[in-house]
């Protein structure tokens, strides 16, 4: 992304007020997990609000914070 920001993409990540489903790649330590979204780019996510996470969990992430764990069976 350019330094200008702009968000013609899937969602507005530059104001970060968007819940993005992300996959846990590494649970990490000290409340920070490495996660990836649709673009597979790894990034740090604070998981203080969702407790212990495991690789493969899907989290709803806002501005770098996981707000909740998404349960597969709860979709429909």
């Amino acid at each position, binding site marked *: *992304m350019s*330094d*200008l*920001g*702009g*968000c*013609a*993409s899937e*969602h*507005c*990540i*530059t*104001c*970060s*007020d*968007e*819940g993005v*489903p992300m996959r846990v790649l590494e649970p990490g330590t000290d409340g*920070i997990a490495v996660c990836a979204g*649709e673009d597979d780019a790894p*990034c*740090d996510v*604070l998981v*203080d*609000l*969702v407790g212990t996470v495991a690789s493969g969990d*899907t989290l*709803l992430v*806002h*501005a*770098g*914070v996981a*707000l*909740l764990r*998404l*349960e*597969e069976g*709860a*979709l*429909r």
Partner: protein
Amino acid sequence: MKFVDEFRDAELGRVLAGQIAAAVEPGRHYKLMEVCGGHTHTIYKYGVDDLLPANVELVHGPGCPVCVIPMGRVDDAIAVAREPGVIFTCFGDMMRVPGGHGTLLEAKAEGADVRMVYSPLDALRIARENPEREVVFFAIGFETTAPSTALTLMRAKREGIPNFSVFCNHVTIVPPLRALLESPDLRLDGFIGPGHVSTVVGARPFAFIPADYGKPIVVSGFEPLDVLQSVHMILRQLVEGRCEVENQYARVVPYDGNMAALRVLAEVFELRPHFEWRGLGFISHSALRLSAAYAGLDAERRFRVPGVRVADPKACQCGEVLKGVIKPWECKVFGTACTPERPIGTCMVSSEGACAAYYNFGRFAREREVV
């Protein structure tokens, strides 16, 4: 991607559109407001409104966090960014929002150290890496992004990072909705409720809308089928004479909210007595500031902030757009003097802003032909 693809199925969309068409009463006009900019983005990206009958109109509400920041607060941010030794960090969109004296991007071009971050945690990392500099984070957003700022502040306090502070502009969702509902020029039949804010606050805080104002609200997800289903649920309430809070996004939104996030917000923030909203004026108890326990990390206490109120440019009609009184393309400067490259108003900056959503997805050309 899992959790997403299921909600973009075109065939299911057509089925839902048929159910909506069957639900509406011919001759009655339905005006529904999507509160959240994320819904505006979905509606124009996927052409959701094209699937609706002509008598179902969607209007855009004040839920884009960038769009509601008043010009004076941008000027305050620029003043802090220009302080010697400051590294000023913010989300990308905020760099292009015009204040009365330019944008943060222009301040950067003139020498201020303004850096884009994706989360407040990034700003805290910059503070750790630059102990000789003051690092300020420009916090914006509703109750969705506020937990991120709160958790970062808790970390900063715990780690004793002395050179980190937050210029707090977090806002809350219920007071502006109440202000909108009190507005005499507003005529709405129901609300598509903000799904992401509700992941934190829950659906319960919206109960005042049916109880006090007699309008239905359906908390909605953000995929095209979510929005279509929510429209259908609102119309069914209207047709059946019901008026309540329904939760279409129950797979994500707990009715009572996210208790852990609410606890964190209560520790780090307190309500401001009042806060100015772009286009909506001052609204009581509609924004957050740092609580006494976190006052030492408050940029407004650490730096001199001018705090001058700046009137919107005369040509700007963002207020009317944010209240759903006019469509973006009805603003006189839409697509001419005001474009995403050179925005006059905030609604043209973020892709969740109604004007930018219209502009980016090429909607305005067709709308003008219709006129």
